[in-house]
């Protein structure tokens, strides 16, 4: 009895030691190999230090003007059409008083009051959603885009409580049955995760402008906010613009020409 136990311990300790050595050796060879990312950037990729959007709200009058952008985005990103209060939306339109809650004015010009405005993720410089996410499923890219990893998100919705712009949606149900025409170039999402506008980071990587910008030529402008020569900077210089809830200090990256 005693001998057999001793034998067992011997064999067990030897095998543990062997396994450990193997793991250590494996780790070393891995470390020794040159770390080269397998990902290669597309030569056409559009680059910026800080992507930003300028929406010329004067140019959006009819339902068709808005729908062109919304549909382009919905199709590009496989956004389901779920009716009711658990809808998913990346870009949508709403009234002045709901968009610019801090600059309401009873005696506003009727034309401005009646106009509708786009809302989408602001890709803030100090994004509260990134600050609160417990798994870094939401993070800021070097180019200023606030991105999301749908496969890491645990669905705690802390980011939704944190976002003061209501830009995020949660998949309360399985979204796939609600997607009419699936775009195979972009992943669909699963039940239980949060999603939002990604400034078309996947299109920028291929050298294309965001889908909504492409769908509204001359109405929505997109460019590098850090470059004084960029189109967006020139537009900001020449026009009076608003941002949503600037007092909160999140520094939104979406500007509205009024």
């Amino acid at each position, binding site marked *: 009895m005693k001998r057999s136990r001793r034998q067992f311990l011997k064999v067990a300790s030897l095998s543990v030691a062997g396994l450990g050595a193997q793991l250590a050796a494996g780790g070393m060879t891995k470390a020794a190999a040159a770390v080269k990312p397998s990902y290669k950037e597309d030569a056409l990729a559009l680059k910026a230090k800080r992507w930003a959007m300028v929406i010329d709200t004067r140019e959006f009058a009819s339902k068709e003007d808005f729908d062109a952008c919304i549909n382009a985005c919905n199709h590009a990103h496989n956004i389901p059409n779920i009716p009711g209060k658990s809808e998913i939306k990346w870009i949508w339109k709403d009234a002045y008083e709901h968009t610019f809650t801090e600059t309401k004015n009873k005696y506003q010009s009727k034309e401005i009051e009646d106009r509708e405005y786009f809302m989408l993720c602001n890709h803030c410089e100090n994004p509260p959603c990134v600050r609160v996410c417990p798994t870094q499923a939401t993070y800021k890219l070097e180019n200023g885009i606030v991105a999301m990893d749908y496969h890491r998100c645990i669905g705690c919705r802390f980011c939704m*409580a944190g976002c003061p712009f209501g830009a995020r949606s949660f998949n309360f149900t399985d979204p796939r049955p609600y997607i009419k025409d699936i775009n195979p170039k972009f992943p669909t999402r699963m039940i239980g995760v949060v999603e939002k506008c990604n400034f078309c980071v996947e299109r920028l990587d291929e050298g294309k402008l965001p889908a909504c910008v492409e769908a509204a030529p001359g109405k929505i402008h997109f460019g590098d906010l850090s470059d004084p020569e960029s189109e967006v900077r020139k537009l900001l210089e020449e026009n009076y613009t608003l941002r949503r809830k600037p007092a909160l200090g999140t520094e939104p990256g979406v500007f509205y020409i009024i």
Partner: protein
Amino acid sequence: MLEKVLKGSPKYYMWLAFLGGIIGVGVITYLFQLKYGLGLTGMNRDVTWGFYIAQFTYLVGIAASAVMLVLPAYFHGYKHFKKIIIFGEFMAIGAVVMCMLFIVVDMGMPQRMLNVMLHPTPNSVMFYDMLVLIGYLCLNAIIGWKTLECERFQVAYPNWVKYLIYTSVIWAFSIHTVTAFLSQGLPGRHYWLTAILAARFLASAFCAGPALLLLLLMVVKKLAKFEIGKEAIKTLTIIITYAMCINVFFFLCEVFTAFYSNIPGHMHPLHYLFAGTEQGLPWVTYWMWIGAIFAIASLALLIPTSLRENMKILPWALGMLVLATWIDKGLGLIVGGFAPSPFETWATYAPTVPELLISLGIFGVGAFIVSILWKIAIDVKKEAGTL
């Protein structure tokens, strides 16, 4: 000591079976939620936290409140609490387990729960919340078990337990502070964006927790035939009364700041909760008024010493207090936080039946844990002659 769980009266077993039934219903409903998603709840795009997170918030307070027994007993050597301290610690264990379960059922992707540990994120308050909850659970389990064991063998507890107890005192304050920080650091949620939220949480916890403990002890002492001790009840009710006064005072501070400053964002949530909207009164308004009336009534019965020390009145006062604080934190806080949406529209929310069944199941788990832990404590104490 675990063997005490297995030896009980038929009543005890029937109670556990009843709780088992409630838990079963909760589990089955949760399986549906797992399959069909959180769409089964009343939550929506604008109100993204609901009944689950509200219960979590309230129960962290109940857990933290054990410190109201531990602090006087171990810091100030107040002997009268020594007998009942274990009940507070064991109730805290049940409460923390419920907190954790409420967090899990609120997740869209619970199978990825461990991502919080795999990708530790120190800038997220939820990361700290996980740490403090697990820590508090361990502290109470170790301290409770060890002190009870020493009581059983009639020896003094080892010195290292004392250091754990001191740690648990600070820890109790930290768990509820961190819970408040989950909400109070969010820009754009006016009802929560207030420095006094953590203080309000602590005040409400330190009255609601001991009140609930005392109520439960009053029931159990009849079943198990023991005395809580007159002095202990007297002191604990004074603690409860002061904490409730502070709680109500802090809330009134909020009301003053909102309405005297006349800032719409600050007034909106309170207006919604107590006076509804142009479209009428939401369901929560009725609850809020019941809560307000119960809060005042409980204070009216607790502040005068003659009423407070009347054992016939006391359970009613405590019951109203527990309900009032629960309405404030377990309903009003979350609904008020989300009611004015980021678009300054009124976002509505009401829990659904599946949501309530799952919550009931979790309360069943808590009651089950507290029942068997208290059973152990009572039996051990009776054997040792310390009850």
